[in-house]
């Protein structure tokens, strides 16, 4: 039974728009129980909204059924929807409102829904874009899991204030705020928003990027506040652990994981491993790193095995270049995740069986940790439990005990390969015994802590993964340009001297980014290139060792001694301030080591010489019949001024790099280190010089004399240290020879050449043959030793263990793997060396 009023209304709608009528009639039975008056109001609302905007009307009508079903009312929300119509262009808000309505009633209750709508209306009043953004956001996202209306209010409050004070749109704020709340908890939103407000003040674009969690600073803030184990901070520890269990050659880098990507995993591509910034806990992080290294070491990226696997899958395997794993999974279509989980589990079991032999108790740790983790995703819990059970089986198998699940047994054998894992995974997949997984979160939750998807990155197949760490030079030797290549280089040099020089100069300037605003001593800049190349400008020639011919090339490398062009007093003062407490400690330590008395100690119980005065006294007392104490010796404790030292710093471009752990650049640490060294040396009183070097081609090695032996440690020297910066390359041998020659001017029995470096010797004209300059540097070191100079190298290159032992000899170098410790360590090392 339909009243005439309604019929008239429906007829009118039919004439205007028959589509809408169909939709209305579909929903009408649901509205009917509420009575004629309500029906009338509702139908006219449909019409009004439709007239206002077709989409809005249709959305209203369509979602009404669910709204009525959950709320068991009609008029309250009808009125709310009509209110939104007040603003122009508000149809997305109406659509969003209607779409969210059932959820709003369901999760917030009637009162909550009313508040939710009121907040939205208020936003529409402020700005319709914000209103649309508000209503478009699913209610469950707004309230968080079970947060209710209170959570929405909490989320909303900072936004209102930010809009009032900074006109920040809700659409900019909301997605970020929700993520921050989900990741860090409700209490984190307000501080995050306040920080954003400050950033907003300094610039709108920067502030908006911050709120959208797109800027570095907001990500950094997020990561900083994330719960869990921060791998980026523990880079050194993880590196050490890898070296302990797997030897050298494992490359660990920070990956591109960010919090919203879900569960963090280690990734690997056959060449490097990539760690996420944060992981659940320490145990998971360490298990993960070892696990990933296991994949790298035990053939997950072995070319032959990959090829075999692709052949099994009847897929083409590219002969060269990186390989994508995707085709392997694509053929499983919608069920790809299920196969991938099984495949990963098989491959992980294979890897861990091998890993267990290298890292004792790895499997026990994995299992214990997996058991302690209680959270399971309902969709993938079966995988998790199977993973635990099979890991236990692997352990049984290694102990020679019977296994429970024979399907996986071949994987526990040491000879198993990736292809076996793939084959077995295929067999298990075909059994269809494991549930289908479609949800990404469920997929991620299927992995035991420490494991993860193995195929997230494009693979770089390795030809012999077990030996890749040793394949450093060697192979390149054969195809190196020999003498002819050198000649070519040389003639090229001669012809384009002028340009080259200028180019080099440009690069130098470019490398000194932060000297602006400081006193630049341009008058001291090297100007050799303007006057052409007389012998004096060419500098001092040194021979260079060519290992390929086992002979010296005469007058091969040319060293030009210069003063450093830049100085930076501001930087020096900043560093002195920053390290003032370290400096104080250092000076104190030196003072306590230093004998306070320059004269010999007299009246000692024993000593090197007789203390004549004491003897006379002793004898006279004796004769006088007393019994004096026999303290009649003198002991000499002279201040040792017999040592002189040159601190020679590598000033190649690479020192300008930013530190991986943040907090500035390597050059900052080098400046600080040199500065502390100099201050310390003043305290010690040893004769010292400070120099830096860089090179571009064999005939252009610059040796910057920052402080000479007899030069006073003046403010000027200090400022020059503050102005040290990186430019060009590292022809170490020539620099060592020049420094060795420098020692000729001083007379001291012990001579120490302290080399501060960050990488291997290299230059533009070494033709990629690392060995050439290595060998030359090795010879330069030998020459220095023969001249009574002790070279000692301090490096921050963690790969230095691969080449420094050959160049400097065991015990004559030190690798500082913690760059931040350089400033403090440098003087300490010296003090230790001179002891």
């Amino acid at each position, binding site marked *: 039974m339909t009243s005439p009023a309604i019929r008239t209304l429906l007829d009118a709608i039919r004439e205007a728009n028959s589509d809408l009528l169909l939709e209305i009639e579909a929903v009408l039975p649901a509205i009917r129980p509420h009575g004629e008056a309500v029906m009338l109001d509702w139908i006219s609302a449909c019409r009004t909204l439709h007239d206002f905007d077709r989409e809005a009307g249709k959305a209203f009508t369509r979602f009404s059924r669910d709204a009525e079903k959950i709320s068991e009312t009609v008029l309250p929300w009808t009125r709310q929807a009509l209110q939104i119509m007040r603003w122009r262009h508000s149809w997305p808000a109406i659509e969003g409102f209607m779409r969210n309505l059932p959820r709003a009633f369901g999760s917030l209750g009637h009162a909550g829904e009313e508040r939710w709508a009121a907040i939205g209306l208020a936003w529409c009043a402020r700005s319709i874009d914000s209103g649309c953004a508000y209503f478009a956001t699913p209610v469950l996202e707004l309230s968080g899991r079970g947060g209710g209306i209170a959570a929405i209010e909490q989320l909303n409050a900072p936004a209102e204030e930010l809009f009032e004070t900074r006109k920040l749109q809700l659409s900019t704020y909301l997605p970020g705020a929700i993520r921050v709340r989900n990741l860090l908890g409700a209490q984190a939103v307000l501080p995050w928003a306040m920080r954003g407000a400050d950033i907003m003040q300094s610039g709108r674009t920067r502030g908006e990027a911050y709120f959208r969690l797109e800027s570095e600073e907001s990500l950094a803030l997020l990561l900083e506040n994330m719960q869990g184990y921060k791998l980026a901070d523990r880079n050194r520890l993880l590196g050490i652990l890898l*070296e*302990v269990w797997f030897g050298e050659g494992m490359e660990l880098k920070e990956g591109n994981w960010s919090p919203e990507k879900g569960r963090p995993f280690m990734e690997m591509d056959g060449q490097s491993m990539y760690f996420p910034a944060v992981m659940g806990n320490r145990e998971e992080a360490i298990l993960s790193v070892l696990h990933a290294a296991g994949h790298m070491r035990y053939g997950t990226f072995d070319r032959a095995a990959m090829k075999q696997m692709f052949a099994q899958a009847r897929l083409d395997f590219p002969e060269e270049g990186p390989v994508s794993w995707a085709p392997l999974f694509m053929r499983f279509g919608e069920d790809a995740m299920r196969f991938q989980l099984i495949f990963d589990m098989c491959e992980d079991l294979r890897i861990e069986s091998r890993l267990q032999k290298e890292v004792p108790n790895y499997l026990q740790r994995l299992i214990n940790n997996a058991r302690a983790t209680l959270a399971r995703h309902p969709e993938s819990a079966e995988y998790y439990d199977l993973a635990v059970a099979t890991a236990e089986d692997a352990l049984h198998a290694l102990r020679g005990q019977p296994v429970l699940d024979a399907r996986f047994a071949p994987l526990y054998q040491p000879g198993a390969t990736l292809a076996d894992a793939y084959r077995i995974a295929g067999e298990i997949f075909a059994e269809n015994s494991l549930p289908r997984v479609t949800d990404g979160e469920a997929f991620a939750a299927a992995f035991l802590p420490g494991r993860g998807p193995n195929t997230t990155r494009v693979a770089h197949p390795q030809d012999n993964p077990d030996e890749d760490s040793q394949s450093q030079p060697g192979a390149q030797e054969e195809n190196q340009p020999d003498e002819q290549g050198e000649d070519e280089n040389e003639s090229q040099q001669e012809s384009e001297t002028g340009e080259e020089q200028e180019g080099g100069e440009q690069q130098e300037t470019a490398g000194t980014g932060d000297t602006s605003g400081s006193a630049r001593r341009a008058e001291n800049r090297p100007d050799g290139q303007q006057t052409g190349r007389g012998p004096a400008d060419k500098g001092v020639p040194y021979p260079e060792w060519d290992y390929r011919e086992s002979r010296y090339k005469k007058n091969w490398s040319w060293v030009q001694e210069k003063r450093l062009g830049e100085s930076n007093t501001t930087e020096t003062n900043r560093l002195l301030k920053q390290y003032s407490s370290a400096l104080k400690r250092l000076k104190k330590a030196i003072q306590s080591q230093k004998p306070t008395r320059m004269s010999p100690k007299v009246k000692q119980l024993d000593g090197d010489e007789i203390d004549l005065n004491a003897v006379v006294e002793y004898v006279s007392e004796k004769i006088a019949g007393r019994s004096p104490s026999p303290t009649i010796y003198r002991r000499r404790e002279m201040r040792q001024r017999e040592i002189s030292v040159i601190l020679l710093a590598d000033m190649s471009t690479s020192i300008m790099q930013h530190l991986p752990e943040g907090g500035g650049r390597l050059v900052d640490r080098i400046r600080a280190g040199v500065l502390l060294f100099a201050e310390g040396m003043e305290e010690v009183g040893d004769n010292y010089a400070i120099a830096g070097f860089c090179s571009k081609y064999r005939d252009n090695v610059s040796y910057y004399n920052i402080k000479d032996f007899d030069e006073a440690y003046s403010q000027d020297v200090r400022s020059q240290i503050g102005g040290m910066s990186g430019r060009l390359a590292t022809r170490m041998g020539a620099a060592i020879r020049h420094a060795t020659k420098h020692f000729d001017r001083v007379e001291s029995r012990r001579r120490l050449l302290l080399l501060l470096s960050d990488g291997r010797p290299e230059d533009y004209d070494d033709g990629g043959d690392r060995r050439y300059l290595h060998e030359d540097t090795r010879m330069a070191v030998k020459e220095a030793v023969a001249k009574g100079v002790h070279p000692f190298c301090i490096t921050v290159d963690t790969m230095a263990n691969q080449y420094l032992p050959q160049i400097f000899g065991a015990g004559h170098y030190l690798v500082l793997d913690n760059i931040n410790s350089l400033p403090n360590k440098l003087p300490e090392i010296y003090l230790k*060396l001179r002891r």
Partner: protein
Amino acid sequence: MKTAPARQRGVEHDIVQIPLAGETAPYYEPQGNEVAVFEAAYKRRLPVMLKGPTGCGKTRFLEHMAFMLKRPLVTVSCHEDLTSSDLVGRFLLEGAETVWQDGPLTRAVKAGAICYLDEIVEARTDSTVVIHSLTDHRRKLTIEKKGQEIDAHEDFMLVISYNPGYQTVLKDLKPSTKQRFIGLNFDFPTEEIERKILVSEVPGLSHENAHQLVAAGRKARLLKDHGLEEATSTRALVYAGSMIVAGLDPVAACQVAMVNPITDDPELAEALMEIVNAHFAV
């Protein structure tokens, strides 16, 4: 010279002691041909230089050899303030007169002992020079202060040790000193030998624990390039084993014997503990 039937503890005795019949030799597990080399050097009375890292068994080797050769062993641990008078001897005043007192080196030269100058590079250079005349064909010790020379006893032998670590770059022995010696290189023993050493040195240590300790020790030595001045020594492993036998939990024993003493760097300590945990904690 005292000839007490059995050595008593807590009682002074002379530094020159001939090994007594009935005593058991100090335990030493040969790692290579060092015993043969030493015996040959002793036959010709050539001075010997023992090189190797701290705690790898240099001193124990010498104790063992001295016992086997039935020679007294006089050990002098050298330090920065050690002067030649500390080695050779000095005049002391006693009542109204001066009395010459032989230093340990002189005592050894006279008694035909093996004189062991431990960590010789630590001593001042003047003390390394006094040994020159003892180390070549002259085999003489000059006592400058007395204006005398002593021809060494025919059984006298000089042994020095030094540890080529980076601390000593500037304190290296002079080549002229070095080349007077037969050089014996020591390093940490192989896995198997190290296990044997542990089991014999620590009675009651289970084979499994010995195995774990040795494996952990080898891994810990890999950290040497990361800022450890001294690698985990066999001695540290023996200590850890002793602590285990004394009832301490293995992980705690390793921490106090192998980790805490060698580093103050928290990160290195953590890495070392990671190694220990991997081997012991399940």
